[in-house]
């Protein structure tokens, strides 16, 4: 237990993912990863009266499903660590209100899921919590109205724009031995700013932060691309992923492109018109709780590194002409059957 290198946590006490759940919106359900979600919503509103409450309800249901799968009641939950994109993270706060569990509200924009897994794993590994539910959500309609324009406004998006995913993902972490997939390392990110100002190109703003955390993770752990079956970034989109490959090349690291999977770039088919791919806290959260852990449980690969990345801008900072600072967190996962 403790810190290795400069900013990587080592979790030695079998912090395992004992349960996981994901719920996605109708458009996401029709995408290539649709079959991997536990549930696909029929409509975007889930019987609520606003998009914000719909997102919160989606998150609540995801957390509840995650608990149910682990056969836990709300009274058994150590803490919920969750965040979203809404101002003052209301989706998470309101979901925690109905769940009535101890709650940490986190914000790391689209990196929130990786951030909550690292924090949750540390709390469980350190013995402060018996278990932790780590979750994140996003909703296309809440993000559009907060960051961009009304849904019915007739305007075009540039090819670099990403589509905020309607989805939520949750994992329950607990010390457990056996066939579980474990969280073994967590690398904390720095806020990096390469002076990108285009709010329609988040991938470009975030790729340098992902590179920074990835290199720090490699340096701290002594690992490299060969040690991982997949490196999952979330969410750089198609062009952000290309930029990351170029940035790594510039630092003398040849990225193994087959291993480099971006949750946003995988989320939609090209015909679904999501331009550079998906984004939002719920994107990497639901892809992790769905596709990635599915694959790991089927032993498709033994180790995975989840690199969540978030653009730490707001509408105000963007209107004031500031560039977009970004942060990225890395969580290393390892299969239960492997070489512990």
């Amino acid at each position, binding site marked *: 237990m403790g810190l290795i290198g400069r900013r990587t946590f080592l979790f030695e006490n079998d912090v395992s993912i004992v349960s996981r759940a994901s719920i996605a919106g109708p458009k996401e359900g029709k995408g290539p990863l649709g079959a991997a979600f536990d549930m696909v919503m029929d409509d975007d509103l889930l019987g609520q*009266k606003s998009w914000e409450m719909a997102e919160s309800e989606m998150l609540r249901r995801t957390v509840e499903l995650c608990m149910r799968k682990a056969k836990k009641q709300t009274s058994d939950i150590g803490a919920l660590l969750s965040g979203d994109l809404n101002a003052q993270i209301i989706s998470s706060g309101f979901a925690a209100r109905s769940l009535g569990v101890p709650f940490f509200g986190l914000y790391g924009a689209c990196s929130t899921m990786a951030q909550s897994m690292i924090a949750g794993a540390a709390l469980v590994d350190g013995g402060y919590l018996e278990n932790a539910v780590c979750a994140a959500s996003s909703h296309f309609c809440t993000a559009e109205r907060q960051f961009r324009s009304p849904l*019915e406004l007739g305007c075009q998006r540039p090819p670099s724009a990403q589509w905020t995913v309607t989805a939520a993902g949750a994992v329950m972490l607990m010390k457990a031995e056996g066939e579980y997939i474990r969280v073994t390392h967590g690398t904390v990110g720095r806020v990096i700013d390469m002076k990108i100002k285009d709010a329609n190109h988040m991938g470009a703003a975030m790729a340098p932060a992902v590179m920074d955390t990835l290199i720090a993770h490699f340096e701290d752990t002594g690992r490299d691309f060969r040690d991982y079956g997949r490196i999952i970034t979330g969410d750089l989109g198609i062009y952000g992923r290309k930029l990351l490959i170029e*940035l790594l090349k510039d630092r003398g690291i040849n990225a193994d492109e087959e291993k480099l999977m971006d949750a946003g770039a995988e989320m939609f088919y090209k015909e679904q018109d999501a331009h550079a791919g998906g984004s939002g806290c719920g994107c990497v959260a639901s892809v992790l709780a769905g596709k990635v852990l599915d694959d790991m449980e089927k032993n498709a690969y033994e180790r995975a590194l989840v690199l969540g990345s978030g653009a730490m801008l707001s509408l105000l900072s963007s209107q004031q002409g500031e560039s977009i600072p970004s942060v990225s967190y890395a969580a290393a996962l390892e299969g239960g059957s492997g070489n512990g």
Partner: protein
Amino acid sequence: MDAKRYSKLVKEITPGSPKLSGFFRAFWVGGFISMIGQGFNQIGALIGLSYQELPMFTSSLLVLIAAFLTGIGVYDKIGKYAGAGSIVPITGFANSVVSPAMEFRREGLVMGVGARLFFLAGPVLAYGISASVVYGIIYYVLEVAGIWG
């Protein structure tokens, strides 16, 4: 890599919006909307509206149709296809007022619809009206001085 080199790399890797097809779509849709407007103008003339009444008659009808199409969720699809072709005509202006009215209905009639109704169209109105006032003053001064008008 420094910020300058990175910005160059970003430009290299990121494709721009497709210009040729964008121009074509904007041209034909914008032209088509204008043609419909011209049609209303002719009809107005046929039913005996005066030269002063015609522009009002035509623009009211176009705004009405655009507001309706926004309401039933069609105008945003036209806008996605046509870009400036459906933003520049007066129908785009109607869309920019009706869409926030729909979007912010849940925040109430005062702080939602009322406060946000012109949040997109507001700048156009503010600077449009300001510009016409400045133009009016310049015109007046030139007229008094006997240079123009």
